């Protein structure tokens, strides 16, 4: 009960005076809900031919049709389910690995730390995008599940280092020593005393990785490394490109998935920025503006009185 109260209290505090966070959350929530409600919002099947090829937007087909005569509107809704599932799964995998490795390494130190950081650093020096392309090419055309796995398993090292350095800072705080002196078990110190102090970092990392995964997945699929029979935002771009939509003037074929990806990316980026502002007070701007406005209002009120 107190946990729920604190959770919602935290949310209210997060969004108050934070327009970037509100707008970002609204965009992401809107797209997410639309994709989840796809069966309600459309009667068509994303894989079925419903019209002639490359029909422009009309009342019938709000976003037109693809070269193969499929409904772009329906595809973008159903494709979003796949793209977002991949993005959030990859973000979950990354965050869980980064958190476990970072916190374990930072808290225990010594040999454990040395070994874990050696692995992390090796992973870190691999340039990521080429690695992804090679992996995907090596595995052949990969489905969304494999893409989520590849993205999740390759993007944690940087996050692990951030978590580790933050854990190191917390570990030296006296409340951790106090818990140790108290006879608290090590796992409990990690889970109850350390991790709650990392919440904003974890949230930021999750959103940041989701943002990266949306782009990386679209990129891989656009390059033809994904499974083109699965409808997602990336494969929609791939088909638009391979059917020369740009040259025949069927702009809707690539503009629609492109715009959704950009919107989703923008929304996530806005959330990410506002989380950064919370965890790093130096970046905070809105609060000072508000204080300034309050002061100005007070001064103005005094002036008008006299």
């Amino acid at each position, binding site marked *: 009960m107190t946990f729920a109260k604190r959770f919602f209290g935290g949310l209210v505090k997060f969004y108050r005076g934070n327009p970037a966070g509100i707008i970002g959350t609204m965009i992401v929530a809107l797209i997410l809900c639309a994709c989840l409600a796809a069966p309600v919002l459309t009667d068509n099947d994303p894989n079925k031919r419903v019209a002639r090829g490359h029909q422009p937007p009309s009342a019938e087909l709000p976003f037109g049709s693809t070269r193969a005569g499929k409904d772009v509107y329906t595809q973008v809704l159903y494709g979003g389910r796949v793209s977002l599932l991949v993005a959030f799964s990859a973000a979950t995998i990354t965050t869980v690995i980064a958190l476990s490795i970072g916190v374990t390494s930072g808290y225990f130190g010594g040999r454990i730390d040395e070994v874990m950081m050696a692995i992390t650093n090796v992973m870190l020096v691999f340039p990521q995008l080429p690695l992804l392309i090679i992996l995907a090419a090596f595995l052949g055309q990969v489905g969304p599940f494999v893409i989520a796995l590849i993205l999740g398993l390759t993007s944690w090292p940087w996050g692990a280092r951030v978590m580790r350095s933050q854990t190191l800072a917390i570990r030296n705080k*006296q409340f951790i020593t106090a818990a140790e*002196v108290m*006879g608290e078990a090590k796992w409990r110190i990690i889970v109850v*005393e350390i991790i709650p102090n990392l919440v904003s970092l974890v949230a930021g990392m999750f959103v940041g990785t989701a943002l990266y995964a949306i782009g990386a997945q679209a990129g891989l699929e656009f390059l033809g490394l994904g499974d083109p029979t699965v409808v997602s935002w990336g494969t929609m771009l791939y088909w638009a490109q391979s059917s020369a939509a740009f040259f025949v003037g069927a702009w809707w074929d690539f503009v629609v998935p492109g715009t959704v990806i950009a919107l989703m990316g923008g929304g996530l980026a806005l959330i990410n920025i506002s989380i950064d502002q919370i965890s790093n007070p130096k970046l905070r701007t809105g609060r000072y503006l508000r204080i300034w406005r309050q002061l100005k209002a007070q001064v103005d009120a005094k002036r008008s009185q006299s």
Partner: protein
Amino acid sequence: MSAHLSVRDVSLDFTIGDTLFSTSYLRAVNRVSFDLKTGQALAIVGESGSGKSTIARALCRLYTPTQGTITLDGQDVNSSQALSAQRDYAQKVQMIFQDPFGSLNPVHTIRHHLRRPIKIHNPTLSVSEIDTKILELLDRVGLAPAEQTANKYPYELSGGQRQRVAIARALAVGAQFILADEPISMLDVSIRLGILNLMEDMKQEGIGFMYITHDIATARYFAERTAVMYVGHMVEWGESDSVTQNPQHPYTQLLISAVPQAERRRSTETKAKKGDIPMWTPQSTGCPFAGRCLHATAKCETHMPGPTEIAPGHFVRCVLFSTAP
């Protein structure tokens, strides 16, 4: 129920440089012996870097002595590394830290900070019994209204109030000994006395204190016995009144003359040479104060005498008083 925490000949080394061919050590505590008894306080006085916190942490089992033994009622406290052994020990010996802003977890309520120690050491208590106990403790350390305080977060409390929470936490496990590491040095002067008096009450109720400070005046106010440390060595110890009114070791005299006092004239101020505070290693010999001492002789560079009892229960380690050849 009286208990007895005993430190015998304890030395503690830190590894400071670790190269392929050699490891260098810093000796933070060198052959220290003292006893803590329930219902009494021992003040450890010394400037920063003299090893006071290190010895307190060793007493909490956070560090293991390089040499020597620490015993609680005759039992070696470092004989088992198991969590259960730490818990048994924690139930008797607790610590209070210097920084009231670092010793409480910012994401947890005061209730959480007291619930855990009670729960760890009394796993059979019910939720409502624990809650009653929490409120009792908060009342006892002067944080009424307890119910409201329990629901607060650390940032809603002042430094002095947080330090009271830290004391309540030590009481929550039912500790017999509390190691207080400069508990008031970061508080406003106006609230220091309140905390000291609270600790005095705890002492009257039978808790034994080790009171670490660099302020010799509060040592005399609060503690029955005082030990003066310099660079890891205990140089003078005994009844607080005797040590502070009649200091014999040149370092203690220097320390006391540094305390501003209205009635003391300038001319009586003890002076010392401007010397560096040495870094002690396991190989170092002699008296650590030799470089700054006005009475230092050639012998001081190589020889640190054992304790000499200059008055009943008042000991000094200095060649000036050493009767041994």
